[in-house]
């Protein structure tokens, strides 16, 4: 969802539908695992004199509990606020003075740190990362100013993004047990309340080398990366694995509904959320292609039926990659004079049509081509490469699954698409959220 997903969760990675071209092959990705359990993947690519380091930590809002919601994301911020060798502000100052830049993002499943730098600054990057992983120094003063920053991040999201406003409420209704229930940014009162002790404990538990996957792509050599990894990352001790997330969301047995009022909304927004399995489930591929059939491009079913017919001015789908069963989102913005109920009916009727009538072979071929194109686009940059490799390693169990994905997509048949629509995109499995300017009345 181009417009909506920029919020906290970047849509992770692109999938592909046929073999990777001359770009990258399985043998181009080299990997090794340090004794402390940290797995490192390397892709040598000298197309520009730059490189990156992506550190994927297996911690996100799914690892939180009420009272500390949002702490994963807050922690993402705290990782920049000082450690033993590089005190407050020195992480960014040192990296930028070496020509590097960085960012980070947190999702329901992961916290990801991204460093982009001239390749010859790689040792500085290893030094900086190792210091904050092993010796983070969380000071009370930094916690307090960062609370203000995160509170502002939360507000600016709610002010500028209807997606953020409505999704937060929909998740709360769709999940009543699993931690996907709350937003990644967390509840306002929790942001104000977590303690130094909560943070220290969180770092020790989750920021252990055995809980990370690292990808380095760019103008680097494997031997040099190995040398630096052994020097900087290998001495960091492993920790006991974090406790598993054991809560399984109980089966939803009927439609749930939420309404959100916001005065400045010009026309109603409608969001549907259907429970779907985790990304590791074999139905992932059919659901992903179905999302594309519904909303990718102006020839897609929902553009044709809703936007072209002037029921909606915008329509999109979103299915995050996910360790646990999550949601398949469909969101529409009503055309002026179309009511929320009319928009909702039109959206549902188009979704139900797939379950009833299925899709054509040509539609399926089209979205497979779109997936392939998306894959090539991702592989045009060293950042796209690093992100794609990491995504496969985490959500599909191994980066080499990247090279099986073509087959997995190609195997999907029109019958599979109809079956997943019938299985998952049904009323009893659905939560409906409406965002509009005027409050509901009896």
């Amino acid at each position: 969802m181009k417009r909506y997903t920029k919020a906290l969760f970047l849509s992770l990675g692109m999938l592909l539908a046929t073999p990777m071209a001359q770009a990258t092959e399985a043998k181009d990705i080299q990997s090794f695992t340090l004794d402390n359990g940290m797995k490192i993947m390397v892709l040598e690519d000298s197309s520009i004199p730059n490189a990156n380091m992506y550190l994927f930590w297996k911690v996100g809002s799914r690892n939180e509990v009420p009272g500390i919601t949002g702490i994963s994301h807050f922690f993402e911020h705290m990782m920049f606020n000082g450690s033993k060798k590089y005190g407050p502000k020195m992480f960014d100052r040192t990296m930028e003075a070496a020509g590097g830049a960085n960012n980070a993002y947190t999702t329901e499943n992961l916290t990801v740190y991204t460093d982009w730098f001239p390749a010859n600054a790689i040792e500085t990057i290893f030094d900086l990362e190792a210091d904050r992983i092993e010796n983070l120094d969380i000071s009370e003063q930094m916690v307090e100013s960062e609370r203000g920053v995160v509170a502002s991040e939360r507000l600016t999201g709610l002010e500028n993004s209807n997606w953020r406003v409505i999704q937060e409420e929909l998740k709360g209704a769709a999940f009543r047990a699993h931690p996907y229930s709350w937003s990644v940014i967390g509840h306002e009162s929790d942001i104000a309340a977590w303690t130094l002790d909560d943070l220290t404990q969180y770092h020790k538990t989750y920021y252990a080398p055995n809980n990370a996957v690292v990808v380095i792509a760019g103008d680097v050599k494997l031997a040099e990366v190995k040398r630096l990894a052994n020097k900087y990352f290998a001495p960091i001790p492993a920790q006991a694995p974090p406790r598993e997330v054991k809560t399984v969301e109980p089966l939803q047995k009927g439609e749930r509904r939420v309404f959100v009022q916001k005065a400045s909304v010009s026309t109603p927004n409608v969001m549907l959320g259907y429970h779907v399995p985790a990304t590791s489930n074999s139905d992932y591929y059919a659901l992903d292609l179905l999302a594309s059939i519904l909303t990718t491009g102006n020839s897609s079913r929902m553009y044709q039926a809703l936007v072209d017919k002037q029921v909606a001015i915008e329509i999109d789908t979103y299915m995050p990659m996910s360790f646990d069963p999550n949601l398949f989102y469909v969101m529409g913005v009503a055309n002026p004079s179309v009511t929320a109920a009319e928009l909702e009916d039109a959206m549902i009727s188009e979704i139900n049509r797939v379950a009833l009538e299925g899709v054509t072979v040509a539609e399926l071929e089209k979205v497979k081509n779109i997936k392939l194109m998306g894959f090539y686009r991702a592989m045009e940059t060293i950042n796209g490469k690093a992100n794609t490799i990491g995504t496969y390693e985490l959500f599909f169990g191994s980066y080499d699954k990247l090279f099986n994905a073509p087959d997995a997509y190609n195997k999907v048949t029109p019958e599979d698409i109809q079956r997943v629509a019938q299985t998952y995109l049904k009323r009893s499995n659905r939560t409906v959220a409406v965002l509009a300017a005027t409050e509901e009345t009896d």
Partner: protein
Amino acid sequence: MKTQITRLMQPNKLFTAMAIAGTLALSACTATQAPTTVDTGSFSVPAYQQVTLSNGLTVYMMPQREVPLITIDATVRVGAVNDTTSGVAEMTAAGLMLGAAGKSKRDIEQEVDFLGASLNSGAGKEGSFVSSKFMAKDADKMLPLIKDMLVEPDFDTKEFDKLRQREIAGLAQAKESPRAVISRYYDKLIFGDHPYANATSGNSDSLAELTVNQLRAFHKSYYQPSNTAISVVGDFEPAQMQAKLEKLFANWQNSEPVALIDLSKGLPKLDAAEVLLVDKPDAIETTFLIGGMGISRDNPDYVGLTVINTVLGGRFTSWLNDELRVNAGLTYGARSGFTPYSASGTFRISTFTQTATTKETIDLALKTYARLWEKGLDQATLDSAKAYVKGQFPPKYETSGQLAGLMSDMYLYGFDDAFINEFQAKVDGLTLAESKRLIDTYFPQKNLQFVIIGNAAKIAPIAKEHGKVKQVKMTDVGFGG
């Protein structure tokens, strides 16, 4: 996220990519410190050819074979500055997608989507574009489509009516997000009656007046080969590509002289501090821009200013981000940047904060900005910014889309590849003395202009402290004038 990489606020490529929010405070004058140059590796523009076809069409070709894709950017030298009715340039460009050479909008979309390709069109202030990315094997299907759109658009009335209706609804929707529209208010405030004030989007009243005949006339006047460049980047053979384009565009001829306007004339003098206060009664935060006139794209000091702006508000450790975010916790991000056009430009500081801290945030932004003159840069900070700007430069020209965009910009703004190839040397050559000259020459110090969007009932008294206030409602038609 740690920081938000906002592309909405800074349309220009170079400054956008640097606008990661930030501010640096390696305080104290270290006059004795010797300059240090950080080696960030060498980088130059990949080889390309520029040719002019017999009908005057400019073609840039740059082979890049890492992935089997081709990007095509067709750039026509016309934009919102040429608007006769507000929004006509944008609607003409968008209208190219509504059917061409007898193929309907739907036919074209089916064909393009089936190939997995992308095909978009739109207008900016000074350029209109058709942009497409496709698999190299599909070139013979996509090239004729792009040609038809540029040369023989149908401007189908029924499709136009639907497009216009969507655009009008989209304008109301955009106004739900202060961040999405604040630049349009700012350009109006800065440029007043000059064409650079024109919002590309038009407004709900002007779009309602437009007709397909106006689009046809606009197209005829400006979409001519001598006023157009096509940039091709990706997996192809230049000789073959040139032959294909020659053949494809052979019948496209110039029909009339293209009307040029002198944009260097009539630029306003900002001789009083002014505040445009945009009232959004349900706002939970205040979003604002502060600044004034900037520079044109061909300014010889462009690169040096990029470095200075990096220190002020072009990266995470920049002064503005350090003070407003890191030290004070008032905002998620504060930044600054120049937006250059061909004959002028703007400079702005941008940030946002919860309504209750509006006053202290504006005051701190101004106080931090004043440091440019009160303290200036020190050697360590300058060295760091230079390393940063150089180190972050190559990834801006990594994809076929980025490289095609670079060539389109060269066509529109009249600079050449020396911009890339001499970039590092220019950065390296910037001295402290020179940085002082750049600050004194280019950063607006007096008569600052403000756009503030928020809950006017609560922040109007604060707005008054900074200049003559004009107050409008967010839901009013247009962008403040």
